[in-house]
């Protein structure tokens, strides 16, 4: 005989409490009557209807209380008032808190902006969530390749045959050439990129001038970016004008794109329509097969299509049509557009000529590290606030006692302290935003980004900032507020000192935590600094100082290389000149070859190959261990090996051993040499190992072939010059070049600068780490200063008594500093193993690295102690110098 419970619960919810009794009673009584009359089912239905009939204002309206009920806003106003009074009365603590938090938040925001930019790469395209890049995994007995490239057929046929795929786009970067304006002879070396019309359909590149969708449809059309248009024409309204790109035909500009935003993986300056070359024989060869890697292909999937299914279908399509060699397997998968920047570590950037630089990419590991650092800095700032607030708890014990005695609930006090911390955080956030805007220009120059924090910034950044503000306020305010509001009013008003062992050890724990992080960061900074210096100063096996590398950018210069080399060496300030295909410390990819001793039937070994001439060893200061150097044109089928390669091939003494080189790879798959013939060569010498890659890599096997070799053509002149009057030397070099080819511009690099670029990111991280380390130490010191001030205040009477009894200033200073030093020492003890572990892990990224010396730890630990001592002793000495009469005069 019980009416529907849920209906009752509903009624209780909306019905005013003072009416609940009679209403429920009526309903139940009537239910009983109805059950007797109509049966349970009908009675239940009527019960529901009756309950609903009570949904009317007169039933819902609550009875007004006869006591005044302060609204929430009244209380809030009170909290705010009290907050501002407390903050203004304790100016020192307020300043310390706000300063600490401001610093912490500034670091957090700067790093946050950086991370946000890194994490939103390539998401400016409206359909970015549906765009994928085709990744080919190729497995043969000798190679295992993952490359961001596919064949033309895959791109075209997938679009037609696979239901998931809506459209496809592709690019191919065939090399570098002069892009020039025939009118005014402005010319610039640019990468030649061919793209199909799909490129403009998939991606939303913003257009300044011209049509956005169809600009790549016609042959002989080119689209360029704003910045290049300005360089060529001094204007961006250049649609319809023609440019020359060394393609034997003029190209008409059909669109001008906006410059790429910094968080775009695409960095092309110009794209030529694919239709321009689609009639060429060479192009026909590129597109004929299924399993090649000639294009970087992007697919637009249909809404809700599963990329894994689409990838599996692509693989099936390939297997149905391609005739793969035995033992070779190819598999495709689809990489989301948003993952290209950060998750391409093991993927070769394909579909490009070896002298085109790869797309830039980020490292997810460092993103994670920086995210953790940002959180730590913020946490340290929060801890500061907590520490100071709890430490001052007893100062405010009377206030809390009176509030409690006059009827404040615990929740009221919690709210009050939370309001206080939220206000402090809010002030800090506002200051931090100002500070961030002041620092951003420098930060942008340093990170090479275009970050900003203002009204036009992405709303998500503001959302995260607000979230961070709320979390920071609550986190830093929660502990003090819960702790302070817990005590009984009696204890508070009897002026018993709040002796809370738990909070004391927690406070100490927090200080230890702060200093642990600071010391770890100091050690990391020093180690990073040492490693970068080591990398830049290590003996690389050749001399990198005062080396000018000049690019060969035209066929005329290439064929006249010998003349140019002789002319270069005639310049008085040039000591020696060498012609090579690649240089040690190369920024473009160095080709690899398959190599094995003649007559051997084992699998081929893999080695890098550089074409060089007889002056190479002399120019680079390289040591020949045995055998002889190249002698001249007669040595075109001779090679030198480095020690590693010699060991790999089992050559201990160079004596004309025969080797065969059947295939090469230019950053992609292995294919026969351009001549279609195996290169048979004799080993005539062995050179000492030298670092031709970054120190992250172990020295790999290297074959030095003669400059005229069937694998790779020459690309650079490298000259060792004298240190005096370098601009004049460069000008003379330019003159020599223009004599051979009027249009050729001098493009040069200094080898040492180029090598330093390997570690530019590390250097950047080092700088960032230094600043963050300084910030954390500063914040930690602010906290320590506050705690020391407070400790001195608390023990003022004790100090007075001790002084009266004869304690010296030194005694007292030691007494007050001791406690804090202990904490810093503990922090060192925790930080050392942690830092040792972390730095070793980082150093192991490098095949060649320093070992972490013990003095790094001693130095960091000692400076942490010194800084802490300085901070604390100021307050300690001040307290020790006070005349005891002052402190003992009144109780």
């Amino acid at each position, binding site marked *: 005989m019980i009416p529907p419970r849920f209906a009752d619960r509903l009624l209780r919810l909306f019905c005013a409490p003072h009416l609940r009794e*009679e209403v429920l*009673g009526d309903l139940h009584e009537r239910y009983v009557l109805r059950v007797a009359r109509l049966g349970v089912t009908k009675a239940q239905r009527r019960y529901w209807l*009756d309950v609903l009939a009570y949904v009317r204002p007169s039933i819902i309206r609550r009875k007004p209380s006869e006591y005044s009920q302060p609204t929430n806003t009244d209380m809030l106003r009170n909290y705010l008032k009290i907050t501002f009074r407390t903050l203004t009365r304790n100016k020192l603590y307020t300043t310390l808190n706000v300063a600490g938090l401001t610093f912490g938040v500034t670091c957090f925001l700067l790093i946050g902006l950086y991370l946000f930019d890194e994490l939103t790469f390539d998401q400016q395209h409206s359909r970015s969530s549906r765009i994928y890049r085709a990744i080919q995994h190729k497995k043969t007995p000798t190679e295992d390749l993952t490359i961001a490239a596919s064949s033309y057929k895959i791109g075209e046929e997938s679009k037609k045959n696979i239901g998931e795929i809506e459209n496809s786009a592709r690019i191919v970067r065939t090399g570098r050439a002069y892009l020039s304006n025939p009118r005014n002879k402005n010319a610039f070396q640019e990468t030649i990129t061919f793209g199909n019309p799909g490129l403009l359909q998939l991606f939303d590149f913003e257009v300044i001038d011209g049509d956005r969708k169809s600009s790549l449809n016609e042959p002989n059309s080119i689209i360029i970016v704003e910045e290049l248009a300005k360089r060529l024409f001094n204007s961006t309204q250049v649609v319809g004008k023609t440019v020359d790109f060394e393609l034997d035909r003029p190209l008409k500009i059909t669109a001008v794109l906006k410059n790429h935003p910094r968080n775009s993986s695409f960095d092309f300056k110009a794209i030529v329509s694919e239709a321009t070359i689609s009639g060429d024989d060479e192009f026909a060869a590129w597109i004929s097969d299924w399993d090649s890697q000639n294009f970087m292909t992007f697919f637009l999937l249909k809404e809700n299509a599963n990329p894994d299914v689409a990838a599996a279908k692509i693989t099936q399509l390939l297997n149905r049509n391609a005739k793969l060699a035995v033992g070779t397997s190819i598999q495709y998968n689809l990489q989301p557009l948003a993952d290209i920047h950060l998750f391409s570590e093991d993927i070769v950037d394909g579909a490009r000529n070896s002298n085109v630089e790869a797309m830039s990419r980020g490292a997810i590991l460092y993103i994670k590290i920086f995210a953790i650092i940002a959180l730590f800095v913020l946490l340290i700032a929060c801890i500061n606030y907590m520490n100071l607030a709890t430490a001052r708890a007893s100062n405010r014990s009377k206030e809390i006692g009176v509030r409690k005695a006059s009827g404040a609930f615990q929740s009221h006090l919690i709210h009050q302290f939370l309001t206080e911390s939220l206000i402090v955080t809010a002030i800090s956030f506002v200051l931090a935003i100002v500070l961030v805007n002041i620092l951003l220009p420098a930060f942008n120059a340093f990170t090479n980004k275009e970050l900003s924090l203002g009204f036009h910034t992405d709303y998500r950044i503001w959302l995260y900032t607000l979230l961070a503000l709320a979390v920071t306020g609550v986190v830093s305010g929660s502990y003090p507020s819960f702790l302070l509001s817990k005590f009984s009013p009696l204890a508070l008003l009897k002026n018993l000192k709040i002796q809370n062992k738990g909070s004391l050890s927690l406070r100490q724990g927090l200080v230890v935590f702060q200093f642990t992080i600071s010391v770890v960061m100091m050690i990391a900074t020093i180690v990073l600094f040492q490693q970068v210096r080591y990398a830049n100063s290590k003996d690389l096996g050749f001399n990198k100082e005062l080396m000018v590398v000049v690019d060969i950018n035209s066929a005329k210069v290439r064929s006249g290389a010998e003349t140019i080399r002789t002319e270069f060496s005639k310049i008085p300030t040039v000591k020696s000149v060498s012609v090579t295909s690649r240089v040690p410390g190369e920024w473009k990819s160095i080709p690899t070859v398959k190599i094995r001793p003649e007559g051997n039937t084992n699998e081929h070994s893999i080695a890098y190959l550089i074409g060089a001439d007889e002056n190479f060893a002399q120019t680079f200061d390289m040591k020949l261990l045995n055998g002889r150097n190249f002698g001249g044109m007669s040595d075109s089928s001779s090679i030198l090996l480095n020690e590693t390669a010699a060991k790999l091939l089992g050559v201990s003494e160079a004596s004309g051993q025969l080797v065969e080189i059947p295939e090469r790879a230019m950053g992609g798959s292995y294919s026969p040499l351009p001549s279609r013939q195996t290169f048979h060569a004799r080993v005539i010498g062995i050179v000492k190992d030298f670092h031709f890659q970054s120190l992250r890599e172990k020295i790999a096997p290297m074959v030095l072939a003669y400059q005229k070799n069937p694998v790779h053509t020459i690309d650079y002149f490298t000259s060792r010059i004298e240190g005096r009057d370098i601009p004049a030397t460069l000008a003379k070099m330019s003159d020599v070049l223009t004599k051979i080819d009027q249009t050729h511009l001098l493009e040069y690099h200094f080898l040492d600068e180029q090598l330093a670029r390997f570690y530019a990111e590390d250097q950047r991280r080092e700088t960032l780490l230094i600043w963050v380390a300084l910030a954390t130490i500063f914040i930690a010191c602010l906290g320590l200063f506050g705690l020391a001030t407070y400790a001195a205040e608390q023990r003022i009477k004790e100090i007075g008594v001790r002084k009266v009894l004869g304690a010296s200033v030194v005694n007292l200073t030691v007494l007050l500093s001791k406690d804090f030093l202990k904490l810093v020492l503990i922090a060192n003890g925790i930080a050392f193993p942690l830092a040792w572990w972390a730095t070793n892990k980082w150093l192991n990224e490098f095949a060649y690295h320093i070992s972490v010396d013990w003095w790094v730890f001693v130095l960091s630990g000692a400076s942490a102690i010194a800084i802490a001592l300085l901070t604390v002793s100021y307050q300690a000495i001040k307290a020790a110098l006070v005349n005891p009469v002052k402190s003992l005069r009144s109780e």
Partner: protein
Amino acid sequence: MRRSDLGEFEEVVLLAVAALSPKAYSVVIAEELEQETGNSVSTGAVHAALQRLEQKGYLTSQLGEATAERGGRRKRLFTVTALGGRVLQEVRAVRNRLWDRILPNIRLEWS
């Protein structure tokens, strides 16, 4: 006295209270009205009408005894005030006067 103060449903409820006095509370009133009119009447509607009438001063109420079928909850018993009684009488007088003025032959046509 403003006539509009008393709605038709309110008038019926007020009459029912007077008729069921001194044991008038929402359940019996609702049941009574259901029986009399044949339409279903929810306690909610009656309750609201009673509240309005009490506000206007035509009714007073006090809490009565609790019963088992009410789950041990008390009921609110209503009684008509003198003002309420006068209003009822007045309404009736108006109606009576109007009834009396209807010509007999018209009344015959209706029956």
